[in-house]
């Protein structure tokens, strides 16, 4: 009986550590962590997805390793140890990306190295992986990775459509053919512009701030609306 209850509890915990960071405790939109890469690499959807995948890899690996070493690392040197572990994985990712996806490496540039000081990666190591089991840390890494990836992808879609007027695929992921989906901007075969409603401001840093601010405002507005509804319901209930 006790065993069953324990297992139930463990399953709930696994589910929580995987699902919570995807929406409820989204690292970017709710926790406001990792804003630096989120603003910098969201000029195109492909760059954002690439960054998201590499981020997920680094976070999951460092989470698992930190969690498996949590009883060995003395408390005096936790932060330096974590930094070395994270920096190692980032360097591995850098070398592998440079070797196998040079276009992605060139696009992300210094922001790949800056994963080392990403608040989410170090934060999850300190706050979660150092206190939880390996499996939970693994799930937490994947969950946070997915949460971060969809968040920056959303920003990238908005910025790419508004900024360039098209969605371009195949420029960074060269294994798929080059496709340009015209949305706000249309060009004919000889590159003559037919119509162009794009606002190039959204490709500049200004656009990054505005889009991020607008998304956070929408999230806050939804939150306010929900709170209002809950209050209203409570009032109804009281009657």
């Amino acid at each position, binding site marked *: 009986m006790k065993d069953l209850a324990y297992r139930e509890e463990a399953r709930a915990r696994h589910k929580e550590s995987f699902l919570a960071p995807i929406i409820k405790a989204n690292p970017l939109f709710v926790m406001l962590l990792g804003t*630096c890469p989120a603003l910098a690499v969201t000029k195109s959807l492909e760059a954002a997805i690439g960054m998201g995948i590499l981020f997920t890899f680094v976070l999951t690996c460092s989470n698992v390793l930190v969690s498996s070493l949590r009883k060995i690392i003395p408390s005096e040197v936790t932060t330096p140890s974590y930094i070395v572990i994270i920096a190692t994985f*980032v360097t591995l990712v850098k*070398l592998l990306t440079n070797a196998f996806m040079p276009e992605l490496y060139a696009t992300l540039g210094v922001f790949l190295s800056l994963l*080392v000081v990403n608040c989410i990666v170090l934060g999850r190591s300190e706050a979660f992986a150092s206190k939880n089991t390996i499996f939970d840390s693994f799930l937490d890494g994947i969950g946070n990775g997915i949460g971060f990836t969809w968040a920056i992808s959303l920003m990238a879609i908005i910025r790419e459509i508004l900024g360039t007027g098209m969605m371009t695929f195949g420029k960074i992921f060269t294994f798929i053919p080059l496709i340009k989906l015209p949305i706000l901007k249309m060009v004919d075969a000889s590159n003559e512009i037919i119509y162009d409603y794009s606002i190039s401001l959204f490709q500049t840093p200004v656009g990054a701030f505005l889009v991020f601010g607008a998304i956070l405002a929408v999230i*806050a507005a939804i939150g306010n609306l929900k709170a209002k509804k809950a209050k209203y319901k409570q009032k109804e209930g009281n009657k």
Partner: protein
Amino acid sequence: MSYLVAFLLAIISSTLIDNVVLSRFYGICSFIGVGNKTKSSIGMGLAVTFVTVFATIICWPIYNFLLIPAEIPYMDTVVFILVIASLVQIVGYFIKKKSPSLYKTLGIYLPLITTNCAVLGVVQGNTDSGLDFGMSVANALGTSIGFFIVIFLFACIRERLEGYKVPKALKGVPIALFVAGLMAMAFLGLQGVAG
């Protein structure tokens, strides 16, 4: 163009024209987190300037005279972050001993600096771009001064904003991001200066 002119120009360009916070988003975490009080923004700005310049002075020789001759330039990120982390520790210890009053203003920001992208970003950017020592220091100085100026201005604006009525959904971080966007727009106008 003499070296001194190039040096000064590099400082000015990385301070104003290519401001790190507003164009490369370095240190945006602390920008949003700390940038709502003028006093703490000054502390943070000073601490970042201090650490960035020192980290550049230490990391540049390590990269060019140690890692490159040993043919392990790919170890750069690991070495840089270790240097920065220990530098932050040492600087904190040193300031605490020598000037307790300075420690009071800087102390609490020092641990935050290890994870500030500006420091690693500048050091890594300098070596990636293959800049020489003088230019690296100029870039570090200009970048951190730029960080200082922007975070201070931002804090001033946010302090003023507190007294105004803002739509409920925009309260707090969203309006701060819009402010940052408008600041970035203003700084875009300075790009013509480089001419």
